């Protein structure tokens, strides 16, 4: 197998952040090379350098053995490097097909676009991916998961020899992940080299040939995937052992009910959803992409209107029509889409953490108590190990996983009685994930009621005291948590 990529001594600094400290990396043709590391280790930055988005401060990049210099993404594309970015970067107002082929539209004389051909080409790619989507749908109408699939389709359409996938599965469900893996296999056989970044450890065993681990902007080691146990990789990443116990389900029979949802409905998206949640309970929501879990959560939170149904909090009927009603009633909601709904990217870490709780940090004249906010922000930065130069760093400059932690901190600080976490560990590294699990359990023990929506079945099963399964807008069943339920039982309800 020939060497496709050879990166040596790559250095990169941002203001206040020494991000890459002489990192090396190599990729052979026909291999899947996993790049692992904690949040903020520098994985995405390294890949952005390889794909021409950032310019390196020092070091060399060779492709096919010859030195290259990329001045922009176009140069990298021309050299055969394709990338799926960690953060979605789509044009929301354009259609799916228009997004996939932006810059490469089939055009005739005078730049007139052949829209039919464009849609056909997109259709072809989707078919290859076994992905059912009308190419003329506007991207803004799609869920994050589908948008992620479009990013993948877009990267595939370049037919690159070097394909970088930066957390492609963070928003995907098992079915789509399986689909993606078949695609990866066939690309491998065509001799494409794939760099794969993910925080889902089980995936590494499934598809990676080699694994390179980074920590704190430094290169640690490269190992063969099949010879190395996961625990070894994890300890290389984190620098210590990570232990995660199994769930122990508390006895909640005498616990009072905090939340009751009765007959919640809206069109086809939410159909007559009813359930209840006790103090101290963690209720997991499982389901396939588009099952309607997010819709239910947003409706309860007042983010979207619903047609009919009632929400009872603490035994009292609650008329919720806006998020501020919901928060006043003690409900918090962590959105699955941090970029659009979770964070003010242009503001600093401190401001984002305190955004839902400003009332607590103001005096009677509306003047903010900055010192208190700084204190609290730093507490959470420490508690959640948020990697940031300071609490006044703009959130937009943090790595994806660290951004997610900031949103979590915001809701932890708000201290709601009922917390709805939609994909809380999306993009979060193993070590931190275990920390967050422990945190959720501790919160439940303190008497909070928690809903966790997750597309990772193991996560739902690991955390939940009960598991609600949704399918096409309906709640198809509620299963007991812990060892009592198998993946197969959940899948059966999710695909009714």
């Amino acid at each position, binding site marked *: 197998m020939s060497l496709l990529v050879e990166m040596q001594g790559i250095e990169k600094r941002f203001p206040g952040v020494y991000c890459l400290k002489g990192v090396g990396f190599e990729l052979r043709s026909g291999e899947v090379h996993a790049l692992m590391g904690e949040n903020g280790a520098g994985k995405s930055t390294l890949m952005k350098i390889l794909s021409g*988005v950032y310019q390196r401060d020092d070091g060399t990049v060779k492709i096919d053995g010859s030195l290259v210099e990329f001045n*922009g*993404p*176009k140069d990298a*594309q*021309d050299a055969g490097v394709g990338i799926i*970015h960690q953060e979605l*970067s*789509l*044009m*929301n*107002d*354009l259609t799916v097909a*228009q997004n996939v082929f*932006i*810059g490469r*539209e089939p*055009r005739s004389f*005078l*730049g*007139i*676009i052949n*829209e039919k051909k464009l849609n056909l080409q997109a259709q072809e790619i989707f078919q290859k991916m076994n992905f059912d989507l009308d190419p003329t749908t506007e991207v803004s109408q799609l869920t994050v998961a589908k948008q992620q699939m479009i990013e993948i389709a*877009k990267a595939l359409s370049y037919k690159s020899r070097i394909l970088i996938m930066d957390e492609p599965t963070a928003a995907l469900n098992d079915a789509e992940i399986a689909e993606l893996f078949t695609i990866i296999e066939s690309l491998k056989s065509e001799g494409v080299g794939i760099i794969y970044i993910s925080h889902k450890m089980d995936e590494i065993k499934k598809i990676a040939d080699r694994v390179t681990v980074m920590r704190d902007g430094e290169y640690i080691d490269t190992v063969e995937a099949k010879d190395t146990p996961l625990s070894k990789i994890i300890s290389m990443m984190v620098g210590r052992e990570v232990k995660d116990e199994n769930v122990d389900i508390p006895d909640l029979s005498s616990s009072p009910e905090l939340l009751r949802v009765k007959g919640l409905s809206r069109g086809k998206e939410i159909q007559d959803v009813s359930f209840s949640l006790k103090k101290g309970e963690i209720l997991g929501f499982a389901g396939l992409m588009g099952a309607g879990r997010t819709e239910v959560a947003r409706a309860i939170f007042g983010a979207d209107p619903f047609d009919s149904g009632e929400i009872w909090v603490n035994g009292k009927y609650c008329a919720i029509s806006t998020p501020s009603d919901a928060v006043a009633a003690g409900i918090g909601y962590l959105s699955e889409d941090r970029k659009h709904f979770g964070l003010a990217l242009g503001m600093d870490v401190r401001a984002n953490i305190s955004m839902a709780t400003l009332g607590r940090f103001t005096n009677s004249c509306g003047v903010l108590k900055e010192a208190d906010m700084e204190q609290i922000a730093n507490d959470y930065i420490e508690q959640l190990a948020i990697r940031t130069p300071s609490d006044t760093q703009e959130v937009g400059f943090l790595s994806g996983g660290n951004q997610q932690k900031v949103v979590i901190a915001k809701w932890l600080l708000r201290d709601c009685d009922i917390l709805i976490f939609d994909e809380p560990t999306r993009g979060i590294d193993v070590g931190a994930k275990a920390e967050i699990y422990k945190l959720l359990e501790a919160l439940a023990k303190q008497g909070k009621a928690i809903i966790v929506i997750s597309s990772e079945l193991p996560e739902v099963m690991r955390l939940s005291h009960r598991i609600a399964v949704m399918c096409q807008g309906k709640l198809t069943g509620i299963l007991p948590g812990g060892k009592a339920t198998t993946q197969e039982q959940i899948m059966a309800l999710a695909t009714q």
Partner: protein
Amino acid sequence: MTTESQTTSPSLISKLIKMTAHQRVLAFASLVILLVFFSVTSPNFMQMSNMLAILQATSVNGVLAVAATLVIITGGIDLSVGTLMTFTAVVAGILLTNLNLPLPVGVLGAILAGAFCGFCSGSFVAKMKIPPFIATLGMMLILKGLSLVLSGARPIYFNNTEGYDAISRGSLIGEVLPFLPIPNGVLILFVVAGVASYVLSKTVLGRYCFGIGSNEEAVRLSGVNTDRWKIAIYAVAGGICGIAGILISSRLNSAQPALGLGYELEAIAAVVIGGTSLSGGRGSIIGTLIGALIVAVLTNGLRVLSVAQEWQTVITGIIIILAVYADMMRRQKSK
């Protein structure tokens, strides 16, 4: 984007309702309501000559609004459309009257001058990373001054150039269909709008307009040279302003160097009333045309009703807000 009819019996009426409920048709609703209202309240409103006056009044502002639409869809703004129009009119005046060149040279010169100024604004925005508001505000001031300098601060009359005033005032349609003497200015507006609409929806330039307005970084990351395209879009918009310059100077048979200030707000208003978002990524030329027509009908109607001028302004303000509100409701429902 479909709306479901409430009735169960598929009667003709329900079908009609269904048809008119269709998004595109409803966009005209405010316009139609205004037309009906003025027709009822004033017997003089609904005459051919007044309709032509309204269309004529739309022509210049409409063309400027088309230019502004392109730039606004990219997420930018063009404050220089009004003075750019004036500047190109002065250029045409110099070419035709002072230098006595033939008519096509003057027309082409004005359009090229417009495109060049647009090219400059575009370069300020794309290459120097100056916010469009400032780049085009600066351009507006520069052109305002240059128009006065070039013309010696006096109007340039096109008396030497045979047929110059026919560009806007003549009526090719009227020669063929004498009962429909639509002035050429209006015809040109519709041609410009038609071409722009085609370019926006069917060509690469249009695609990048929407793409850049929607998420410039994403387009750039896809390997498109967004800077170059942005410059191209501003240049095209500038060229269209050149056409507006020809139209207005032909209608006034002179290049008036002091005119044009304040026209930018009116053009942008037409664009936004037409449903194009100032944050970019969304918009249509047909919407802009409707927006320009709404403004023109409203202005004309209130004048024909002889409403006192100060109240005209008040009512215009209220109706613009209501029209856009109606449009927002319609869009929300059709979702």
